[in-house]
């Protein structure tokens, strides 16, 4: 059954006032101009122009749509593309481009496409206002851990804001990670929750209960607070190796993307698609075909050096990425920037167990590569500092054995710097 048949037709969904219509057109024009001038994809600038002319654009453009919001500290972009692929088996989908997850990027996504099914990656700090404006049908909450403390704020403060916005949000199904105490506490107030085993590779931020601050006791995957009744909920959607157990069905996953973390993201996406009644076997197949969004996990060549690009933005993400690169003795390039979008305080480097890299040769690079070099110095990891990204790859390549591949792990803007070097 096509999604459009379940939902209002496109034209009916988009009755815009003259002002909103003009704001949308102006934004699309600005975006087009920005693209032609070679200033990137232009989605953020376009959305900002629309918002300047119509401050309620998120609500006006969201009206009549079936919106899925995807938020959390890690896995937003990948999971958004998975939900889009899954719903794409039912009809056309509007979605924002990789990483453009603030108001501008979300508005542009809805300006550019009238498809009713709308999947929006939403920055954590922007979630409450986006929920209020777009009245989503599904909210996917992946995980919550420390990230960009200088901009987003502390994890608990964020969890309180989420909990407040989900209290009394009508008609929404929250697809939530039951393995993350922060998420469970924030989501349990929602009227309908589907609990997914979304994983908890990083537990430091949830060591103390978000509700009463007492110790959270872990027993394998299971957890419960020692001071109050917060505990791991009964899981509705579980992962069994490469099968997802959902709604009484066992759905096989054959992902092109690596690691258990992506299988967990896929389980979250299938749970969201299930709310819309998608055929889950077909949806899983579509998810399996994704080969990486915005260059994540991509195998590429940089100055003829075969490399794999891994994005890691915060301690939880780094811990996942270090797990992916484990078991190899090959050299690594590790890159850290601290621009606004990265968070300007990289002291979290000291929360990441870089000691695990001992025995491997590491080239530290990026604008904050010196912080990283000092971290590796204290971890007794053999390393050099090389400020230039391309030279860093070439330096690491000298230590690479034949027929092997270099892993390049980078945080957000440093990752974009490496993408620009691909095939050059």
């Amino acid at each position, binding site marked *: 059954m096509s999604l459009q048949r379940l939902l209002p037709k496109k034209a009916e969904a988009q009755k815009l006032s003259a002002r909103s219509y003009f704001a949308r057109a102006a934004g699309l024009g600005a975006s087009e101009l920005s693209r032609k001038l070679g200033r990137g994809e232009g989605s953020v600038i376009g959305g900002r122009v629309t918002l300047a002319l119509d401050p309620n654009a998120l609500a006006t453009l969201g009206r009549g749509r079936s919106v899925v919001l995807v938020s959390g500290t890690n896995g937003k972009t990948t999971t958004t593309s998975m939900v889009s692929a899954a719903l794409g088996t039912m009809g056309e989908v509007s979605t924002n481009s990789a990483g453009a997850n603030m108001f501008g990027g979300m508005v542009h996504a809805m300006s550019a496409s009238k498809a009713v099914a709308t999947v929006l990656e939403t920055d954590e700090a922007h979630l409450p206002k986006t929920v209020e404006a777009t009245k989503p049908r599904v909210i996917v909450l992946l995980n919550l851990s420390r990230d960009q*403390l200088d901009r987003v704020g502390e994890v608990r403060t964020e969890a309180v804001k989420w909990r407040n916005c989900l209290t009394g949000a009508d008609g929404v199904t929250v697809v939530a990670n039951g393995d993350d105490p922060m998420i469970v506490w924030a989501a349990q107030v929602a009227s309908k929750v589907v609990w997914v085993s979304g994983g908890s590779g990083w537990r430091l931020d949830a060591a103390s209960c978000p509700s009463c601050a007492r110790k959270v006791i872990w027993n394998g995957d299971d957890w419960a607070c020692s001071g109050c009744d917060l505990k791991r909920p009964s899981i509705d959607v579980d992962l069994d190796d490469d099968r997802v157990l959902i709604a009484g069905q066992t759905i096989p996953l054959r992902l092109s993307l690596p690691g258990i973390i992506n299988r967990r993201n896929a389980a979250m996406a299938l749970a969201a698609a299930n709310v819309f009644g998608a055929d889950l076997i077909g949806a899983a197949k579509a998810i399996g075909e994704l080969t990486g969004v915005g260059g994540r996990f991509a195998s590429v060549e940089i100055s003829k050096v075969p490399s794999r690009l891994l994005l890691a933005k915060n301690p939880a993400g780094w811990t996942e990425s270090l797990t992916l690169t484990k078991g190899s003795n090959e050299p690594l390039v590790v890159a850290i920037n601290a621009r606004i979008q990265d968070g300007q305080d990289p002291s979290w480097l000291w929360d990441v167990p870089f000691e695990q890299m001992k025995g491997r040769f590491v080239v530290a690079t990026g604008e904050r590569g010196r912080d990283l070099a000092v971290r590796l110095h204290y971890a007794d990891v053999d390393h050099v500092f090389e400020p230039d990204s391309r030279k860093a790859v070439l330096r690491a390549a000298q230590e690479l054995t034949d027929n092997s591949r270099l892993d390049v792990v980078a945080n957000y803007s440093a990752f974009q710097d490496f993408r620009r070097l691909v095939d050059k």
Partner: protein
Amino acid sequence: MSSSISICVIYPDLLGTYGDGGNAIVLAQRLRWRGIKAETKLVDLGEDVPAGCDIYLLGGGEDQPQVSVTERLAETRVLHKAVDAGAVVFGVCAGMQILGKQFPGADYKLRPGLGLIDIETQRGDGPRRVGELATRGEINGAAVDYTGYENHQGITFLGSEARPLAQVVSGIGNEDGKGTEGAVQGRIITTYMHGPALVRNANLADQLLEMATGSALEPVNDVEVDELRRERFAAAHGRKHADSTQGAGIGVIGDLRRRVKRR
């Protein structure tokens, strides 16, 4: 000199939000590089803080965990006894506020601290104080420069028994516009500097270690630390200029908005 130095990290699960666990890594490594044994104890939430350690570290944390750490330490008084016995204590941000006489909780209400150092913290107005911090202090009569990254809502006042760790060169520090940073009283040293503080300031790390070991320490290889310091001092200098131009402008607009709202 003790044959082994014990470093106790107080509830890193609750007071470890800003990478301050790095301070323990630095202290232990700098001892090992000098052939001195180091033992680091990370106190788990379910455990009591052990007595008899040489150095106690308290890091930054969120409001609610900060209150629960204080309640526990006030109950057991382990830290009070350790200070009486001559332990060295290093507190960062929330860790500094806890050691003082009072600080604001998550509900903004003032709560009693441990009273181990003569400082008081209140909730500051406006946005959090966030950014690169550069200060100048002294160790054994010689001027030393410190670099850190501050991120706090609290403003801290020093009583007569405490003296500042340093004077602010750029950034905010304890109190808006007053120019002091951190506090020292006896063998307790506190600061708002994350970064972490002892990563960026090997001089301060060694001062703590010399206090704990009771002897002067050999220099170690700090080439990479020195390069990082040069870079960070330059960045802090940039913040001072940004604050005096754009920062002030934003402040004025913010004030006007607030006034308009009140009317």
